[in-house]
């Protein structure tokens, strides 16, 4: 016999509901009181054309986080990373960043977004007041422009302007030595390509005033065929070529220009060549391409840097990228700042981060600094060298001079109306 079920809510389910209600109200406090772990949120690009940006960033972060956790965590709390894909869309980056903080309870953000996405996450940081370290965006205005400045955001990334100053002075020295007066440029047609090329030629002409740019090419971003660009440059007969093509664009460009034997006819300066993502993909890497360093384990020539590159390779079976060292450095900064502040509170960490200098395998002198007045990374290893077709690819890198960088950067900031 079955007992007829009375309509309405039974006593048992009322109790269960009340219990569940109490739990859900109390849960955040209970959880927080027991929170041994600290969640760090990371929106980044894990799908699409530049997915490598995100995965190599995540890899480096995990490598360093494991070390921090093994050493006792962030001010005694174990780190739990929450890494999520933004697909490279700024509106998704903003949503993901907000969700990471508001729903997942992340207390800090590492922003692994490029270009527009980083500005979108920057606005989220401004809105929510959460500590945010940008780890992939090289756009100088992100920290140089005082309108962007907020107390809780930092940038742990190399910058276009630094690269241009070092590249300009390096190229000028070679120009003078070899008498390279006629130059051509070939860079992707978007803000990064135009700005970086403009700044490079500005500093090249400053150090070598008799240089003349006789041909400019602006292929589209992700353009598959460079034949017309290559022939245009060959017809102009320059003595030297500058390019800030990167990634897949640079490798297809080199493969296609190789057919025309371009690299034996002129000196080529490709700022983004010395990154394993490009070096290992090109079919026949020409000898003697000048390039800025992105990440290369032979520069800086320290055992720490080589060991770090090998450890990464051992764990992920590929070499680290430029984004890898930047993300690793951000975790190193967080660990050191949390130790100094003896806290995981974002505000306290931010106070310590200002002007903080830490030991780092990627520093020009073994250390890097988070500059206090504009919250940006300085003192990292930066230099130029020439390629060879096999490992170590760029055997010798001539280091840039940070004193010159600081002087010219200050001048540049003034000219842009940033100071």
């Amino acid at each position: 016999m079955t007992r007829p079920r009375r309509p309405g809510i039974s006593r048992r389910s009322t109790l269960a509901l009340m219990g569940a209600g109490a739990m859900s109200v109390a849960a955040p406090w209970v959880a927080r009181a027991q929170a041994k772990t600290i969640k760090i949120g990371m929106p980044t690009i894990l799908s699409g054309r530049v997915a490598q940006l995100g995965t190599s960033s995540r890899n480096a972060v995990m490598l360093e986080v494991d070390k921090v956790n093994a050493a006792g965590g962030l001010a005694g709390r174990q780190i739990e990373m929450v890494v999520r894909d933004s697909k490279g869309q700024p509106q998704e980056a903003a949503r993901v960043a907000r969700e990471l903080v508001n729903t997942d309870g992340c207390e800090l953000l590492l922003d692994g977004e490029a270009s527009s996405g980083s500005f979108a996450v920057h606005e989220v940081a401004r809105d929510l007041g959460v500590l945010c370290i940008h780890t992939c965006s090289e756009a100088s205005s992100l920290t140089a422009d005082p309108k962007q400045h907020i107390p809780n955001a930092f940038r742990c990334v190399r910058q276009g302007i630094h690269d241009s100053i070092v590249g300009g002075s390096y190229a000028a020295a070679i120009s003078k030595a070899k008498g390279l007066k006629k130059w051509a440029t070939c860079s992707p047609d978007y803000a990064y390509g135009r700005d970086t090329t403009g700044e490079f030629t500005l500093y090249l002409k400053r150090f070598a005033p008799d240089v003349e740019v006789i041909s400019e090419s602006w292929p589209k971003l992700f353009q598959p065929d460079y034949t017309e660009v290559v022939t245009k440059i060959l017809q102009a007969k320059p003595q030297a070529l500058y390019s800030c093509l990167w990634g897949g664009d640079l490798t297809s460009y080199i493969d296609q220009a190789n057919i025309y034997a371009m690299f034996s006819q002129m000196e080529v300066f490709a700022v983004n060549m010395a990154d394993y993502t490009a070096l290992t993909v090109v079919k026949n890497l020409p000898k003697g391409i000048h390039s800025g360093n992105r990440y290369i384990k032979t520069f800086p020539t320290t055992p720490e840097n080589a060991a770090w590159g090998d450890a990464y390779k051992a764990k992920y079976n590929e070499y680290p990228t430029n984004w890898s060292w930047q993300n690793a450095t951000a975790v190193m900064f967080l660990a050191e700042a949390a130790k100094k502040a003896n806290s995981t509170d974002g505000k306290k960490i931010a106070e310590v981060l200002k002007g903080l200098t830490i030991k780092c395998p990627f520093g020009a002198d073994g250390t890097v600094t988070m500059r206090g007045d504009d919250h940006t990374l300085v003192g990292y290893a930066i230099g130029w060298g020439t390629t060879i077709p096999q490992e170590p690819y760029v055997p010798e890198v001539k280091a840039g001079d940070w004193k010159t960088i600081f002087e010219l950067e200050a001048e540049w900031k003034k000219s842009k109306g940033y100071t």
Partner: protein
Amino acid sequence: MTELEAGRAETLAPVRGSAALHRYRDVLIALIAFAVLASLPLFTGSKALLDFVIRCSAYGLFASSLNLLVGYTGLTSFGHGMFFGLGAYSFGLIMQKLGLPIPVAFVATLVITAIIAAVIGAICVRLKEIYFAFVTLAFQMLIHSTILSWASFTGGDQGLRGGIPRPAFFGINLANHVHLYIASCALLILGLLAMRQIAQSPFGYTLRMIRDNAARASFLGIDVWRAKLTVFVLAALFASMGGMVMALFVSGAYPEFAYWTISGEAIFINMLGGVSTFLGPMVGTVLLLLLNDTVTRFTEYHGIVLGVVILFFALGLRKGLLDFVTEWFSHRRDAGEGR
């Protein structure tokens, strides 16, 4: 009055009465929907839920406005996203450079959108089907390229930086999350109600006739070009509203808002929800955003999951979700009545 006409007048009167009832019913539903949405923050402190509704407002306005073109007029635009981007950029630029009050900037953005849509529409709506689709796509790419290359004005590929200022007006402070939420809900409901009125008006029925047989409409004395242009501009206005909500949400505007992928998303939303019912795109919006938000939490291979869902809708249901549901109900009713 002949006997025939007298008989017709009798049948017309109740029809008119029920039309008025329908109209009030729509307003009533809108009011209830707004009341439910606006009271949501009283019951939940979940900021993620409020964020979700704000994004639904932006995409919902955008996708529903595309349905005015695709579903009601039979104009498949591949470049509708340009007005979404235009709304976001115009609003953001006006707020950043001129610092006008928000309502003024809102109206000014609509005016700018209307002018540009009228110019683009005048060229596009002369064309049919695939030609219309591709010329709208071309204009979208033109606007996208303009945003990218006019870097001194638009910020180029880095977007409008530095945040969009949100001064308070009439006691509404859009910098406050709950205020922004309620304002977005209000815009969504008002926008949907206005689009519903357009769809149910004689003009709306003219559009359906043009969709089904433009030549016949033309023979009946309808200026097809003018009707198409009007709905093109109207749809652009609602898309622009969606763009403004998105600009307020992310506190910026980015070239991705005017890229063809955003138009593709709107078409996808319409496929998911269905184009033969008015609320189909709204259902599609909620579905797509829910799918997106849950799938991206668990995997970076969300493309595969979304692809399977598209296949399911395209090959399995062969129509949008709401179309499927309404059809299923009417079948059941017919079966119940023994027909």
